[in-house]
């Protein structure tokens, strides 16, 4: 109802205002679309209807661009116009050679699901093996740790003790030398070394005597125990 009112008004206006072009809501426009009612205001957006009919380029002519003679364009023509494009539908699918190429490509780049699952499993297995080996190594080493700690501590104590002993020994020798000779002398001098050698000899003799006594006691004690 409103549209008809508008049409009446526009008709009246178009009749009255002759020289002035008035763009009204609904104007019967004789455009290249033919007699069509445009339902837009001033400056309507162009409708862009394609009523010319399917344009199928001439394959033999030189003037048609190269890209309109390709198979891809033929497929698009078929997609747009259907059988009116006069294209053999069998050409839409890949030929046997193309199909072989596609299959080879797929085989190379897209392995089947089983192969992929196997690869994944192999990778996972490798990872878990690595991890387990590492953990085993760590566990074994940790088990050895207390013993190693003990050994190390013992070593340290031993070295300390030895050092102490050596020091004491040296101090003793120095004191001995001081007593004998009356003055503190350098432990590297030959006199000191002679004195050290003498002391050693005396110690050896004492030890030998001790050993003999111990042997005699041993010889004396068992026959007494036996009898």
């Amino acid at each position: 109802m409103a549209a008809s009112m508008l049409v009446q008004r526009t008709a009246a206006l178009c009749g009255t205002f002759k020289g002035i072009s008035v763009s009204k809501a609904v104007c019967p426009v004789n455009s290249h679309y033919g007699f069509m009612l445009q339902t837009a205001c001033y400056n309507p957006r162009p409708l862009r209807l394609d009523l010319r009919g399917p344009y199928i380029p001439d394959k033999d002519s030189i003037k048609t661009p190269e890209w309109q003679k390709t198979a891809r364009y033929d497929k698009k023509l078929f997609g747009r116009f259907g059988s009116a494009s006069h294209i053999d539908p069998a050409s839409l699918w890949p030929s046997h050679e193309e199909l072989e190429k596609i299959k080879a490509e797929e085989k190379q780049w897209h392995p089947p699901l089983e192969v992929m699952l196997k690869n994944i499993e192999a990778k996972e297995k490798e990872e878990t093996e690595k991890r387990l080996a590492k953990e085993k190594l760590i566990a074994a080493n940790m088990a050895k740790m207390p013993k190693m700690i003990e050994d190390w501590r013992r070593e340290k104590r031993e070295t300390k003790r030895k050092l102490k002993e050596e020091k004491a020994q040296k101090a003793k020798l120095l004191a001995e030398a001081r007593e004998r000779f009356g003055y503190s002398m350098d432990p590297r001098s030959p006199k000191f070394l002679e004195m050290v050698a003498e002391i050693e000899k005396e110690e050896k003799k004492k030890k030998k005597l001790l050993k003999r006594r111990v042997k005699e006691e041993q010889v004396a004690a068992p026959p007494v125990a036996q009898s």
Partner: protein
Amino acid sequence: MSFAKKNGGKAFDILQNLPRITLANLRPEPGAKKAEKRRGRGQHGGNRSGRGHKGERQRGNRPRLGFEGGQTPFYLVIPKYGFNEGHSRRPQYQPLTLKRLQYLIDLGRVDPTQPIDLTQLVNARGVTIQPLKRDYGVQLVDEGSDIFGAKINIEVQRASEGAIAAIERNGGVITTSFYDPISLGILIKPVPFFMRGQPIPRRMLPGENMVPYYTSAENRGYLADPEEIQQARRALAQKYNYVLPDISKDELYHMLAVRKDVRQIFFGLSPGWVVNMPEKKILKPTDEKLLEYYSS
């Protein structure tokens, strides 16, 4: 007529007797039009025109953004770190909240009585997917899981556990499937693809890094075992503490059980078919080699 009752009543009478609307009768809503700020005019806009007093500010010679007067600026003090390294090689999934899905169903933009696919979602303008921006599909997010109450058969590319629980709690079915970028482009814009005149291609399988996701039943992957999926359904029901409804006794069981083949892109269309839009015909190949390839 006296016995014909008019809708609107007095308001309609008033409306009929009012004068016609012209530019002289119209006025914008108060607060709709805000007066523009004109610099350099009048007592308050003129003089220094809002530029301040002398210096770089008034003379328009301020240093670049981020400059801190010579002190090492913040954007250089912070060391580089590869947060965005390789960002263009990471697959992206457009999030779809359950809240939005419920909104679409309530407005009637998505039909819950048919299987819901990415094509349906894009047709309903529920999501926008850009395959060229490394989008690999849509992911279901459990934002509106407490208000969600629709029984649907939905297929997405990723789904969070809460979303799966929400859908199965209402008696629906959810599947996660993979679409390679070409198939995705075809899926979201089927009509332009059909106008190209190419046969529907086969959907490719996911890459090795995504195969574990799509073969696990917890994610309802399309490559997973159906029995495992049943077990996972029961386990999830136990975890989220709801009773798992029995779908086999449902009247829509046939619709809910519809699922796509591993190599299929569209429901009802096989790979290898050519869909012709102007004549509304489907062309199927007859060559054995082609058939063998497309149905493998």
